[in-house]
């Protein structure tokens, strides 16, 4: 994509967990960094996330997961993205993610992983770098 075009990102909270402070502060940080941010709201099913991502034609999906279920969720969502032809969008994930899971997430096809404690700067650069 052209560098001048704004990156469109969907920040999404899959599942039943309602702890949304992390998702919201990252959404604000990315918006301040000039990206177009869509926030899904809470309690989203993976189908709903795919639907919003398609409708909004986003470049990135950013999942926020605190429950520990990041591996199965990302695996399932990647498969659904392929199935629904959402191939141009990149999947990223943040939240309570142990470091030893990062290689596994990359293997599944997750483009970038931002475990809790990652600075806004690193998240912004990490997402921009996906389009370098």
């Amino acid at each position, binding site marked *: 994509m052209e560098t001048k075009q704004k990156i469109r990102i969907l920040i999404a909270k899959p599942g039943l967990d309602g702890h949304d402070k992390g998702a*919201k502060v990252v959404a604000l940080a990315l918006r301040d960094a000039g990206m177009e941010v869509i926030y899904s709201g*809470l309690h989203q099913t993976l189908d709903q996330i795919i639907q919003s991502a398609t409708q909004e034609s986003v470049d990135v999906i950013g999942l926020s997961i605190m429950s520990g*279920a990041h591996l199965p969720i990302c695996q399932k969502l990647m498969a659904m993205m392929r199935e629904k032809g959402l191939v141009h969008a990149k999947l990223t994930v943040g939240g309570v993610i142990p470091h030893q899971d990062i290689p596994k997430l990359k293997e599944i096809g997750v483009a970038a992983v931002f475990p809790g404690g990652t600075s806004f*700067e690193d998240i912004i650069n990490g997402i921009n770098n996906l389009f370098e």
Partner: protein
Amino acid sequence: MGVAKYIKNEKDAIKEVIYQSGITVKPAYGPEDLERAGFSYEKDLGAPGEYPFTRSIHPQSYRSRAWTTRQYTGFGTPEETNERFRLMIANGQNGLNVAFDLPTQMGYDSDHPLAEGEVGRVGMAIDSLRDFEAAFKGIPLDRIGSGLTINAVATIMMAMYQAVAEKFGYSKNQISTTPQNDILKEMIGRGAWIFPVEHGVRLVGDSIEYAVKELPKSNPVSICGYHIRESGATPAQEIAYAFEIAKAYIENVTQRGIKPEDFVGRFSFNLNVYGNLWEQIAKFRAARKLWAKMLKEEYGVKDNKNLFLRGLFGGGGSGLTKEQPENNIMRGAYYALGAALSGAQTTALCSFDEAYTIPTPRSALLSLRTLEILMDEVGLRDTVDPLAGSYFVETLTLEMEKKILEEMKEVEKWGGMVKSISNGFVQRKVSRQAYEFEKGLQSGEYRKVGVVPVSEKGTDKDPGTEAAAVELHEYNEAWAEKSKANLKELRRTRNDKDVAETLKGLEKAAKTSENVMPHLVKCCHAYATVGEMAGVFRQVFGEWKEPDFY
């Protein structure tokens, strides 16, 4: 979040201290500060146990009784949780604080597709009365009170608690339960809401009305400034928003023809303890006074014991860090000190490993011991409100009072709490503050030990990533299998006719203004599941749609 802003010169001398609530602290305080603020012992403090209760709600406070300790407990199946309950009680804990898993909190049974991967993960999985029978087996429900951390479906769990007590041979007059039951705070932070705002508030009203009439020892609602603070509110906002939420519930119940005098004494609060020590102490003292004043002056409540701000002051989760987790043991001890200096009636501490995992038995007991050390060794039971009369603390308490009132006024300008939440005003404000604070922490404007600002990453000030010495509580897939198998067995053996009939009664009540509580008790006794009862509400009330947060 959790620290004040310190503006320093190049020699590290502090030039200015600004608390999160927006109060600037002077280098020293003297009698002139109290005079300037118009401080009066009679008007602003009064003796402990006397109006306006700034010092204490009881004349003897901890001299007559140490605080009640209630560590937040629950995971896996009801059997696992029962074992941990017994461990904590055997070790001197005198109340329970029950954690439910997310499917239960959201009104789904363990075999619902949305429950996949979550059964028993962050609390215990409850599907029916059968599970409560296992969870509370052998617990003396006439002596041990139980806090239930449940909100959207609090009415269901309160009914189930009554049902289990009756099953065990206790009468409903003997039992004491405090369901959290604060749906408005779920909509500001924590996020375990289901139904639209007005229906959520109606259910809270039903449970209060029912408790007033049927459950004489239970406290039907615990208003949680706690989670609002965790979501980014300042200490002054924590209290202001909690009081505005209380006003919304009071309004609902008084519309039913019940006088505030007859129910506000049953309200309790769940408030947070992390952050600057002095700011917390001033917050609690100011809050006790403002609550009593508000009830007396605005609602005409007369009986002193109905004016008490009672509750759990504890937790402190957002003050803890993922970095160098052992430091959280020390943080917890200081937070608990603040709670004790503020006269907390009930308390609990987040355990040091909670940024990683559900606490292990070792870390949960460490929290309990921290609380005991304060009472038994350090001297917090010696005298009531030991900081009273301090030039600094009294000035700060008066300033905090002003800040809380300003924040309340803002919510009232927006049209009250129900409107502020429906429009998203409060959520937006709190999220924005959380963002600003996080930026400040990353830039080094706010300091937390072990948290390295971005500019110092990789320099000699950065200790690097240390492997955390935390033993992880493993999630066990077998819990879900067991819950699902139990549910299948339950559906096979219960009397379907009873279930259908009681659910029908519930639906009828939900559709009218009839109180749902007696119907829920009947449903529970018939072994209707949480998913079935919540399903009735979902169908009648629908689900809430969050307002945009920016």
